[in-house]
């Protein structure tokens, strides 16, 4: 049975993400309880997140699902991190002192490319990878002060026109810095396609 898990660990935007996926007829299971370790009957796990790195990590820890997410990654399940949820997939952040999930090698650093550290608004994102080039547009909504900084730069599949990493893919792990649920129809299509891909395979 295809299953899409959407982690709700007390920070953020899971309600909107659920809403937009359901608009595309994708059924989402919101997880706001501790999952049993042997629960494996799913294809995709979505990790949203809003606010600070430390705030997210602490909330995730409190939810009891931290290890489950690490396990999802190592089992090859599709893990999609969004905004702060994408950042905690890395090892650490300049923003805080907590350790991240460490699923992708690298850290999260302060924005340098924008006039102010805060990168907020609709930005131009070009997807270099032909699998995603149809999504290139200027409507992606960003709202963050820190950016993804993977060790392996080749996994950055898209950047903003200022050079801020927008979309990272490392094997089964996907990191989206912008808010696909707030980036117009293209954003919604982008997220739902990413999810759909995992269900088809």
């Amino acid at each position: 049975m295809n299953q899409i898990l959407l982690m709700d660990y007390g920070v953020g935007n899971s309600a909107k993400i659920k809403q937009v996926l359901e608009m595309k007829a994708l059924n989402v299971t919101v997880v706001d309880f501790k999952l049993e370790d042997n629960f494996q009957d799913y294809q995709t796990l979505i990790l949203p997140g809003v606010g600070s790195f430390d705030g997210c990590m602490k909330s995730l820890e409190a939810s009891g699902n931290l290890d489950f997410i690490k396990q999802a990654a190592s089992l090859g399940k599709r893990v999609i991190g969004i905004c702060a949820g994408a950042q905690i997939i890395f090892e650490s952040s300049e923003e805080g002192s907590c350790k991240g999930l460490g699923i992708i090698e690298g850290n999260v650093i302060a924005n340098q490319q924008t006039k102010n550290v805060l990168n907020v608004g609709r930005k131009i994102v070009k997807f270099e990878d032909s699998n995603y080039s149809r999504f290139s547009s200027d409507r992606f909504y960003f709202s963050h002060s820190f950016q993804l900084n993977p060790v392996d730069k080749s996994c950055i599949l898209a950047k903003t026109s200022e050079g801020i990493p927008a979309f990272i893919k490392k094997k089964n792990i996907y990191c989206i810095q912008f808010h696909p649920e707030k980036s117009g129809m293209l954003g919604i299509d982008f997220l739902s396609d990413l999810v759909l891909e995992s269900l088809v395979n």
Partner: protein
Amino acid sequence: MKRVIPAITFFNESVFVTLQFQKRLDGGDLLNSIRFFSESDADELIVSFPRYRNSESNSLLLKSVIETCFVPLNIAGVVRDMNSATELFGLGLDKVSITLTSKNINLMKEISSRYGSQAITAIVKIDRTLDLTTTLLADQLLESGAGEVLFIDIAKDGSGSGLDLPFLEKFKSLSDKMPVLLRGGCSGYAELGSVLNLNWIDGIVAASMFSCTADRQSILLNYEREMWSNHDL
């Protein structure tokens, strides 16, 4: 890319186009307006509730507002404590706007540390009688943890007579610290196009322009990106 943000004001039963923030034209159903700007893929949307009172029905209303909006949403006039902030962010709200006063600074700091500076817009209401030094303002803004500042020219609200740039330029230097947004009197698409070229301005918030016909006599929601972006006007 510069931001163009429509603003809607809701007075208890209906949306209103305002003049100096007093009710002027009845704009009808709130969710309708939100839906319009959402379907227009507005850069962001600000909804103000000047007479907001906590109640069960208002909580449901806010929930509907958040559910109806698919563009980044900023709500003003509602959040007065951490509880309501937590509830709204949990439902999917992106930002809150809070007036920058000494009374509000602690709340703003708390929200900023929990949800990030991007979650707070500091509102500064223009008062031409006050001699506000920008250094003092800058200090307060930094202390508040707000991610951006929105200057609201109340005297010009709903006038469509043009932004008072000569006056607003006083605050130019703040743009080094954080994005600066302006609201009050934008006359139309032609002015939008030219003002957005100024590099200290990160975005314009406009109300009557996006809710009315050009003569501002009738309600007609509009948001036509081609009319200000890179085309000849």
